[in-house]
């Protein structure tokens, strides 16, 4: 059985945010405008967290992309009164938009703060709506949403493989964030396949889970940053 997973190498992430815009373009994420954003209602499915260590002039900065961790034991799922969010057989923490009644309990229970709520209906003033991805529904007001691991791309990749009567090859399906990353800091694939790139990355001694002590069993693995040291003569 497939378990879709992602690995993010923090050594390679520059915080350039190409992934954030790629995600918005792929998934029809609405922009809410200055006033709404000021109230904390921006809708990004993926954010770049920035961390500082030390004081000037010896200050260090690190970036960490944070998106839905597609938890194996997701705190968001059991609190939904209408089962709008559930774990699908391939390890995706899926959302049924049409079932969501907007209690926001799931967002409240998510330790990664990656769920966003549509306080209003999305607006895409014409002809900006010409850009909308026909493979992804535009969510109405009152509905919770979050990263889907680009499930429409997963589906398209599986359809294509089935059409050609073969298995989905490793690296064939790319998420939007992964595809646009200039430094190739993101790997995506099947964590159950020991030979997949994402599995190899996840085996790295640098690998860790975000908030690992909560035991949410995330499908996203991070590779921690390291320091340069001078090679021996």
């Amino acid at each position, binding site marked *: 059985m497939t378990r879709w997973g992602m690995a993010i190498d923090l050594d390679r992430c520059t915080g350039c945010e190409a992934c954030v815009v*790629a995600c918005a373009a792929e998934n029809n994420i609405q922009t809410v405008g200055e006033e709404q954003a000021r109230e904390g209602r921006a809708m990004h499915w993926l954010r770049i967290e920035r961390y500082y260590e030390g004081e*000037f002039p010896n200050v260090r900065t690190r970036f960490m992309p944070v998106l839905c961790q597609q938890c194996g034991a997701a705190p968001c799922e059991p609190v939904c009164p209408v089962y709008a969010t559930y774990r699908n057989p391939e390890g995706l923490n899926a959302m049924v938009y049409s079932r969501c009644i907007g209690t926001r309990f799931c967002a409240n229970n998510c330790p990664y703060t990656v769920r966003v709520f549509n306080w209003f209906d999305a607006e895409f003033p014409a002809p*900006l709506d010409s850009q909308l991805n026909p493979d992804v529904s535009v969510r109405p007001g009152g509905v919770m949403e979050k990263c889907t691991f680009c499930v429409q791309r997963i589906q*398209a990749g599986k359809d294509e493989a089935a059409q050609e009567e073969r298995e989905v090859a490793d690296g064939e399906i790319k998420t939007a964030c992964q595809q646009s990353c200039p430094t190739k800091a993101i790997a995506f694939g099947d964590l159950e396949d020991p030979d997949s790139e994402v599995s190899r990355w996840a085996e790295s001694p640098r690998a860790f889970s975000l908030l690992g002590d909560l035991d949410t069993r995330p499908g996203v693995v991070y590779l921690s940053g390291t320091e*340069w040291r001078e090679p021996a003569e």
Partner: protein
Amino acid sequence: MSSGNGKRGEPRVTIGRRDFFKVYASAGVAVLQGCRRRDQELIESPVRRSTALPGASVWRRSICEQCGAGCEIEVRTVDRLAKKIEGLPDGFVNAGGVCALGHSALQELYHPDRVTEPMRRGSSGELEPVSWEEALETAATAIAAAPDATTVVAGAPSGPLLGLWRRVAATVGAPPPVHWQPADGIVEREAARLAFGESTRPAYDLARSDYVVSVGAPFLDRWRSPVHFGAAWAELTADRRGKLVQVEARHSLTAANADEWLPVRPGSEGVLARGLAGLLMASGKFPEDARAAYEALYAEAPPDLAATAERCGIDAGRIERLAAELARARRPLVMAGGSAFEGESGVAAGAAALALNLLLGAVGRDGGVFAGIDFGFEDRLAGEAAAALPPAALADRLAGEGESGVLVVSEADPLHGVPGLEAAFERAGTVVVLSAFFDDTTSRADVVLPVQTDLERFQAVEPDPVRGVPALLIASPTVAPRGEARHPGDVALALAAAAGSALPWPGFQEAVESALSGAFAATRAAGGGASGPVALPASLVAGALNARQFVRRTTDAGGLVGTEEMRRAPAGPASGDADEAPGPIPDPASLPAPAAPVGVEAFTLIPFESLKLADGRGANRPWLQELPDPLSTVMWGSWVEVATADADRLGIRTGDIVRLTGTAAEIELPAIVLPTVRPGSIGVPVGGGHADYGRYARRRGVNVNALLDPDRRVAGAGAFARGDLRVRVERLRRPRRSERPVIYGRGLRQAEEIPVGWAPHDSGPAHAALPESGFVRRLGHPRRAAAAPTREEKA
């Protein structure tokens, strides 16, 4: 059947005939049972005149022209509408990557406030729609009446389109066009001429180096090609093989990612380079001829360590360690750019940094610096026309009180970029603007000519040098143009024709094809081997029988791309003829230091290009406005970065409104207090505060360019000096609700410490200290839950 997101690189229309009928039969039945209207739509669809099936994805190759980098992209189109931009996996520059600005080209294309029809200022003083013929005639009549009083401002990157503007300006009898470009590129050319004897912008082989000192070049932010250099940086630092040292006063994204950041005093980058040279020469590790080549450039000896440390405000021990590491590195490289070039002595500072490569033996070797060569298609299209002028020439031409003649501005917004030009634009007889938007300059226009954006037009681009390999990239339009928008090159030719000086080509594409054809002929005439100044490398024309076939093959193949073997070192300081050989380079260390701060509130202003808004062109895209800046996390609007120490002293808290006062203007904007800012300096992103430019940019943020002094120039380069500007900073008030900076408040809910393990500098094996040493402090932007809307808001 294949649809949706198929594989990239080929049109995804691989539906079989049998599948087609199966799908449509089943879909038809399903829909018939439901809703009649949908059924009608479905039956209409198959008879649409399109080569693609309705709803199927077609991927088209294109070139991103959001900056001069020349990233090759693939655009997913569905039903002839552009949906998504991806990097071309084997793209010459970008190898599959796209930056945030590149993605947003879609929102430029489909912007609700695009100019889609020609306009002319009517008797009422308002712009009114007119036909193309009328608009062109008005513009051409004004040009033909006073050709020598016509000033052309071309905003296109260097390359064929700029060459065409040069040709058109010369043909109608106007002076050479002003090339509206960032100061950086012009200063870089001049610095390279002094250091390397050749005024091409240097190309850097970052990926194959093992120790890179970047003097001011913010190559991961918005400089040259952040996508190419991002990938090269990742290769450099993979498995911690190589090190990046960023020498820059501001804590840019590049500084944030560097292994070591040297926050030098603003304007002292060149002094540090000279100081390093002194230490390197004293180390005795470099061959005598490299040393001699470097020493020949300067009349003075480099400053000693103590003087360098004093001028740069950096600990002497640190500079010494850096020099020692650099001397021990196997393939060291020094890059220069950005803030190092932007002060009045930018040329001297840039040359000092570039010249270090002579000493390090980095010129023309793998992991080093190369000449930024191209195939010369700008000159091929320009013919005999004179070279374009630097931006400062515009201010000089428009200086004085008399009438400014005719101004033709193409794809540039000088009124947003430099203060003090408004009066000259008011005095101009006719202002003709070619633009896709009502930006600050367009709103002053008498004639507005709508132009196509990247994806709508035929493209021929010579990318900015990043690899040292020449290229001419060509792409056909991806989608149909909106409204009546035309290609700016076609408009230039139409203007020339209407002014009575027609050129032999009906459009830009024909001009490029003619240049290609000429290049083929010249190459064949050169004897099939020798590459003269007008010839291409023989290998590129080898397969074609005749010029026509060569042109067709080249356009079909997406252009001409050179090979790594074509890379070469710059000519070298000694090779220029005597008239052109530069004298000794001014030593930055012997130039006077910028004036000392006057009182506690005088700061050095560092305007910078953020990856969101770039030089301002990104400001009209909602994706980019709502993108949190990676360092300040600010969305929508402008901000000023203030050091923690300065903020404590002046009583400034994050969000407070502060006033920045320059010599001629003042601006007010919210402060963001950061521990990474060098005390005594402040950073403000450029690109905010447009007078117009569509609903998302209009009066959003403030325009820091208002503080620039247009009379300050980078010596010897004809560029406006943006660096080392002194401003007064005062706190005004806590922000009103509507003034609060929009800070991205989301963060991890439960952790102030997360297991990101990195060892402190210089302490043991890279991976040994995980994860115990990991300690990360979140900066104190309080986490906020999204506030539920009020009843009024809901209404």
